[in-house]
């Protein structure tokens, strides 16, 4: 590893220049996966043969003098809730443990078309439901910085893989913080793009109006590079946006002079661990030193984010997960003569889904039920509108809103598994970006006394990922926090 470049951009350039071959890079990363996976459990599936063949194809194209894609030879890890043609895709659920999709998610197809090499599918909370990766049918992922800690969730495997050097880029999905919180816990960069910026086609839906796919990387520049490949309109996703996609790498000027950073002080002062708050304040000071202006903003409805989020996401999930009915694919219970269709449904789903998924399906079914819909689902949608107004108001006077990504550093495995409500509350700072559709990024902003990573979250205007990446990159240049854990 040590002799090879570590970032996607450096790998891409080195492969293009012939300093290393794509196969060498691929093999080194596969070696790292094999070395770390027994302790991290970050991968559900490793596809070494497929990856080496793809890498060899990149080398062949280079030898033939063909034009190479913007990610040629760069290893990537794909969250296991994104479809990969011919490669098992499970969403870390027993109900799909043998499911092999016959098609690619748009994002994986775009990455591969750009020359990226898929090394494997990363572990996550089942159907992306969770904040600690402990809801996986394949066991929890460990945090590469401290193996007794959670890597966060739901994209815990992707975050751990990147932090451990298994791949410079991983794709995650973010419904209420599932890219940003694990990025924060694992000390890397995680970007949730604007709703509609990146296609959801081939993403196993959890909550369709909140889900967004995004990059998890060790640098803002690599996140920008990934966004250049995966962002943009997709005719297969009716909610994808036709908004023009800028060259995100061009936004990385290193300059934040005049950037107006809003801090919702009342909101972030409540229930946040002292080390997190200290790191947050230091990060704000750093941005100020770099020329940014810090402005107080208010998000009066932000504290309602958690209840609103858990009404909306469970309602949508209860419907999205109905297709796992054991009829066409997925786990089917062993049937005996006399068993009815109803038995097949009930027992297959009972055996196939884990406790958290069942909990959310039941909650969501209740939320949408006749007589409760108005009080829960409709009311939640109304609060969502109020929250949108809060942000609209804030963005009249600032360019980004800054908050801690998580109120705590990574917590201990098992610490919150018996208390779903405590677990849900860890998403307090991340859910509102999903509810409103705004882009948000988590970037490393230091460590606590136990050398556990802490993340800074910046939320931007609709379709203004460029400003988030510019601020993230400038902050990164000013701080140089280490992002590679030595497992």
């Amino acid at each position, binding site marked *: 590893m040590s002799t090879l470049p570590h970032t996607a951009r450096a790998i891409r350039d080195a492969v293009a220049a012939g300093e290393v071959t794509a196969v060498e890079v691929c093999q080194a990363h596969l070696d790292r996966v094999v070395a770390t996976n027994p302790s991290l459990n970050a991968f559900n599936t490793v596809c070494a043969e497929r990856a080496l063949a793809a890498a060899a194809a990149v080398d062949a194209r280079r030898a033939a003098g063909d034009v190479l894609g913007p990610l040629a030879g760069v290893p990537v890890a794909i969250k296991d809730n994104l479809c990969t043609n011919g490669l098992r895709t499970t969403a870390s659920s027993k109900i799909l443990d043998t499911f092999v*999709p016959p098609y690619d998610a748009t994002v994986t197809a775009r990455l591969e078309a750009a020359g990226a090499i898929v090394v494997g599918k990363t572990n996550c909370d089942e159907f992306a439901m969770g904040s600690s990766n402990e809801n996986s049918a394949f066991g929890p992922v460990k945090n590469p910085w401290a193996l007794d800690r959670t890597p966060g969730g739901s994209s815990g495997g992707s975050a751990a893989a990147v932090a451990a050097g298994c791949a410079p880029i991983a794709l995650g999905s973010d419904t209420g913080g599932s890219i940003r919180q694990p990025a924060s816990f694992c000390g890397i960069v995680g970007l949730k793009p604007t709703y509609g910026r990146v296609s959801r086609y081939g993403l*196993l839906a959890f909550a369709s109006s909140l889900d967004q796919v995004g990059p998890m990387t060790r640098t803002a520049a690599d996140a920008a590079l990934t966004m250049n490949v995966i962002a943009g309109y997709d005719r297969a996703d*009716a909610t994808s946006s036709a908004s023009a996609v800028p060259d995100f790498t061009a936004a990385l000027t290193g300059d934040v002079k005049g950037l107006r950073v809003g801090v919702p002080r009342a909101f972030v002062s409540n229930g946040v661990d002292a080390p997190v708050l200290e790191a947050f304040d230091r990060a704000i000071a750093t941005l100020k030193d770099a020329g940014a202006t810090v402005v107080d903003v208010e998000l009066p409805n932000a504290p309602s984010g958690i209840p609103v989020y858990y009404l909306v996401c469970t309602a949508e999930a209860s419907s999205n997960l*109905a297709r796992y009915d054991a009829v066409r694919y997925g786990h089917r219970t062993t049937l005996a003569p006399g068993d009815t269709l109803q038995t097949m449904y009930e027992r297959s789903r009972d055996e196939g889904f884990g406790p958290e998924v069942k909990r959310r399906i039941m909650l969501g079914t209740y939320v949408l039920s006749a007589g409760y819909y108005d009080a829960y689902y409709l009311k939640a949608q109304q609060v969502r509108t109020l929250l949108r107004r809060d942000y609209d108001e804030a963005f009249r006077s600032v360019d980004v809103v800054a908050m801690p990504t998580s109120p705590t550093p990574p917590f201990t495995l098992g610490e919150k598994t018996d208390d779903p409500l405590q677990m849900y509350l860890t998403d307090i700072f991340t859910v509102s970006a999903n509810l409103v559709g705004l882009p948000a990024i988590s970037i490393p902003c230091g460590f606590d006394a136990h050398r556990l990573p802490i993340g800074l979250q910046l939320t931007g205007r609709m379709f203004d990922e460029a400003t988030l990446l510019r601020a993230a990159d400038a902050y990164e240049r000013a701080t140089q926090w280490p992002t590679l854990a030595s497992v």
Partner: protein
Amino acid sequence: MQYETVIGLEVHAHLLTRTKIFCGCSTAFGAPPNSQVCPVCLGLPGALPVLNRLAVDYAIKAALALGCEVQRESIFARKNYFYPDLPKGYQISQYEQPLALRGSIDLDVDGAVRRVGITRVHMEEDAGKSLHEGFLDSARRSYIDLNRSGVPLIEIVSEPDMRSAAEAAEYFSRIKALLVWIGVNDGNMEEGSLRCDANVSVRPVGQTTLGTKAEVKNVNSFRYLEKALEFEIARQIEIVSQGGRVVQETRLWDSSTGRTQSMRSKEEAHDYRYFPEPDLPPLVVDAARVEAVQQTLPELPEARRARFVSAYGLPAYDAGVLTQSSEVAGYFEAAVAASGNAKAASNWIMGDVLRRTKEHDVAVSAFPISPESLGGLVRLIDKGTISSAMAKDVFAQMFESGRSADAIVAAEGLAQIGDAGALASIVAEVMAANVDAVAQYRAGKQQTFGFLVGQVMKASKGKANPQLANQVLRDALAEGAGQ
């Protein structure tokens, strides 16, 4: 006590697009099972729907033909329920904000016009088909064919404006004719392109509130619709007249027993947990699009019927028969253009043409005699070239051979003898050969005139113009009488 029946219908109609409503798979009927499917219509994990623009245009077209107001914004919604042929576990439909509202259609009930209100027209996807019979192991398992999954549908919901089974059947028939007329549905009920559920209740005559309704499902032909409703109406009247209460429920029509039977009660009714479909943005239809679709709408049956009366002077009955389908109406207008005689064209079409299309099960569009050709036949009659009686034979030959009337008449030498000189010699021959009959006539036995006319027609091989033959014979008989 006298009871009044109240019926409202929900008609489901496939739209005639080549591809499905949310993916590019073919909608063709009859392909091998599961051969027209993709991740979207199979409900594979991660697949997403994309709305078919043409399906929207067809739905708008139907809504406009039904006199509905197309809504600027309509919302797709998920109707959640588990069924093996419903791949996603929900049907994408429209619920609180449908595509179109408030239309109507006029029925002809015993010579009077009855207007039936259309509550709404909304778009949705069809489900697949469960196959419970016809396989070696059908006793143990069912099979699913998802070729139909995702075929675009409109649902047309009527107001409870119908008062008898016959009216309901008439309504369903009018809806079918209209959808076929405007080209959005093929009217093929055997293939399930058009289906119907009925809401039925009864109440004492004079009562204004509605009785408790039952929904009758699975009535997919006009005959069954009428039978099922008659059974259901009788069943409800029987209950109510004995002091009982009708139970609100869904009932299934069984054509083999001729009865409806309970499928599920109100308590067992599904809670469909409708909510807005987050995978599809609101459907926005602006005025320009409505206008553009309006432009593609043909003249509707009612307007055409009225025009046939006013422009061609046809009786209302003729106009009704001729506007049963746009093919028949088009055939008629082309025949009029070719013949210049609307009533004659109408008579031929209502009689021989439609009879033969039925007898030979051939579409009007594929009828061997073109409307121009029929027009030619009418012209020959009007010019006196052939007699009406002879025209029947010519028509038969046209149908068999596809040749024009002119060609047949010329080839067979069928033109009437309309020349008095030519007829005079035939008359003279006949009179010479029937001296006794001539004498009897001249002696005052008028009845022999008919016999002599017959002989003239026979001698001319039927080609003598009958009126002219009469005239020449009468003149010849009168001439000789004074000698």
